[in-house]
């Protein structure tokens, strides 16, 4: 686009005018269209009115939360023109560790949670470091991490779910209580009106928003994604920022892992398979460009709702698997088409 001439800016009071135009054609506006389109579907096919019940929406949000949390980290990475395929496996690894710590070792959350977050962040930071220092393409590095973390999760869990059924030495099983922290994370607040995981998701959104829109680091991430060479020439600490981005993605994956374990009340080494695709889809449907340098977390929030509601609406209408898949494909394209002017 640069170097390609465009219409004169020298018009009178360009600021206010362009402000208006930007608002009108703002990605958020189009992302909103996509969401509304899906909601419309919900109103038409309401699954015997289920769609009009608040609980349906509450649960839709809860189901979308884990993906949304992953998508927050994914957004940071994608803005640097990178990608992180390992989020799903890291989620599983953390879910397993969290269950191990809390259920089997009976650790206090004050130890278990920080430890888990550290594990997730470490995975991300390692990817980021190698990508930045050894110049491996993000796609392939995180693909490797995806495979590795999955293997690690299986090793840690001994290839079985880490559940409240604990094996005795004689091969029989004894049942232990679900840890308090699990129940807490899986509970609801504000008079049963919103799930804790949904709140956690919103917190993640807020944190990423501050990072992207308010802190210097945010500028750096955008600059790296927009023109890495330019960023370097401008004195941006590129490597450090990449470690930050992927580390953050790892951290968010860990948070998602905690939520997953709490909701499943167990650590499943197979959990989160193919979640990375959903997370990426969310980010892109929001309107963030995979080429990097553009987009934002607000868009990802909208994307999360779009995908989340799509899932829910198909589910309450008991659409059979085959049909559901085809519809999903079509609707994704339709939704993105509403924003093709952006792409």
């Amino acid at each position, binding site marked *: 686009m640069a170097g390609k001439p465009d219409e004169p800016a020298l018009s009178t009071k360009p600021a206010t005018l362009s402000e208006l135009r930007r608002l009108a054609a703002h990605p958020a506006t189009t992302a909103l269209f996509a969401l509304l389109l899906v909601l419309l579907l919900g109103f038409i096919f309401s*699954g*015997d009115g*289920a769609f009009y*019940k608040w*609980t*349906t929406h509450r*649960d839709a949000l809860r*189901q979308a939360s*884990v993906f949304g949390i992953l998508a927050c980290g994914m957004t940071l990475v994608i803005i640097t023109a990178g990608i992180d395929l390992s989020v799903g496996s890291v989620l599983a690894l953390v879910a397993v560790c969290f269950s191990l710590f809390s259920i089997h070792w009976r650790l206090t959350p004050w130890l278990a949670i920080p430890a888990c977050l550290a594990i997730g962040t470490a995975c991300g930071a390692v990817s980021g470091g190698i990508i930045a220092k050894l110049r491996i393409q993000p796609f392939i590095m995180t693909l490797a991490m995806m495979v590795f973390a999955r293997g690690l999760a*299986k090793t840690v*869990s001994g*290839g*079985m*779910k880490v*559940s*409240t*059924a604990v094996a005795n030495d004689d091969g*029989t*099983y*004894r*049942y232990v209580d679900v840890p308090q922290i699990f129940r807490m994370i899986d509970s609801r607040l504000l008079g049963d009106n919103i799930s804790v995981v949904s709140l956690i998701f919103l917190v993640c959104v807020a944190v990423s928003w501050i990072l992207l829109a308010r802190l210097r680091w945010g500028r750096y991430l955008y600059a790296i994604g927009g023109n890495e060479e330019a960023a370097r020439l401008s004195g941006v600490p590129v490597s450090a920022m990449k470690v930050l981005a992927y580390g953050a993605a790892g951290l968010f994956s860990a948070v998602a892992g905690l939520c*997953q374990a709490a*909701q*499943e*009340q*167990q650590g*499943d*080494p*197979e*959990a989160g*398979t193919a979640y990375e695709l959903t997370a990426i889809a969310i980010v892109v449907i929001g309107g963030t460009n995979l080429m990097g340098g553009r987009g934002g977390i607000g868009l990802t929030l909208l994307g999360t709702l779009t995908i989340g509601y799509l*899932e*829910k609406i198909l*589910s*309450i209408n*008991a659409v*059979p*698997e085959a049909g559901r898949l085809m519809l999903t494909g079509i609707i994704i394209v339709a939704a993105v088409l509403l924003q093709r002017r952006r792409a």
Partner: protein
Amino acid sequence: GKSEEPTGTPPTTQSAEPAASEAEPTTTGPWTIGMSQCNLGEPWREQMNTDIEQAALKHDELEVIFKDASNDTLKQRAHVEEFVAAGVDLIIISPKEAQPLTEPVAKAIEAGIPVIVLDRRVIGDRYTCFIGADNVLIGREAGKWIVDQLGGAGNVVELKGLMTSTPGQDRHRGFREAIEGTAIDIIFEADMKWLEPDARKEMESALARSGEIDLVYAHNDPGAHGAYLAAKAAGREDDIMFVGIDALPHEGVMYVKQGIMDATFQYPTGGAEAIDIALTILRGEEVPKEITLGSRVFTQDNVDAGGEPIGGES
């Protein structure tokens, strides 16, 4: 599978509380049943749904809503919640996991909706009725059969299902218990993740490694078939026996009929039984808390006769 049932829970012998009494008193229907399947990706579960469908067709007072969690526990949990919200008369669930679905099921019970748990258990006793077969037992039976086929000695390849899944673990455990102390040794074992192409790959490796293979024990029939194809490609299919599990009419049983496999052990879906039990419950009659389905073995000799029952009563 049993392994997920904590020994701590008392195997409730007395019959379930008459769930139907909470439901509307009608004893004639029409009734809506919500069926949540954990993953239609697997042929066996496809079969389960088919069985339920077939059985339900015979009773036009029944309407069954099928949902597929496509292998996602949290999705399946949402299914139960949605069924409760929609106020169905009864829920049939074939859980992906015991643990995560225990509480959603309990909530449904509290909401006065009877729940039939199929194949995999939930923890505790807050459900109306469990119908399922015993993978450990089937694995053990397969083991016994193999032992006396090989006369207590031989080289066996074990192609395991996804070992992070309970059926995989149980079919492995039962089998190993059975061959305990015999001269049968497992010369090669690998996780083929229930997938036929993977089974074929692993079998090729096994063939490449060792000249002496007497029998292949696969945790499902597609696995056994994949192994057969590999052996066939190596021209060694005649000196190797192939044993699988599941015995779906169009899979394992067919393979045995064709002489591809030597034996397959049925892992019943319980679909038909589920509908019968459902009707009993809905009519307000009492049902047993536990129904353990018997299994059948199909071999060259008995396949046309429809196999022979093994293990538990049915």
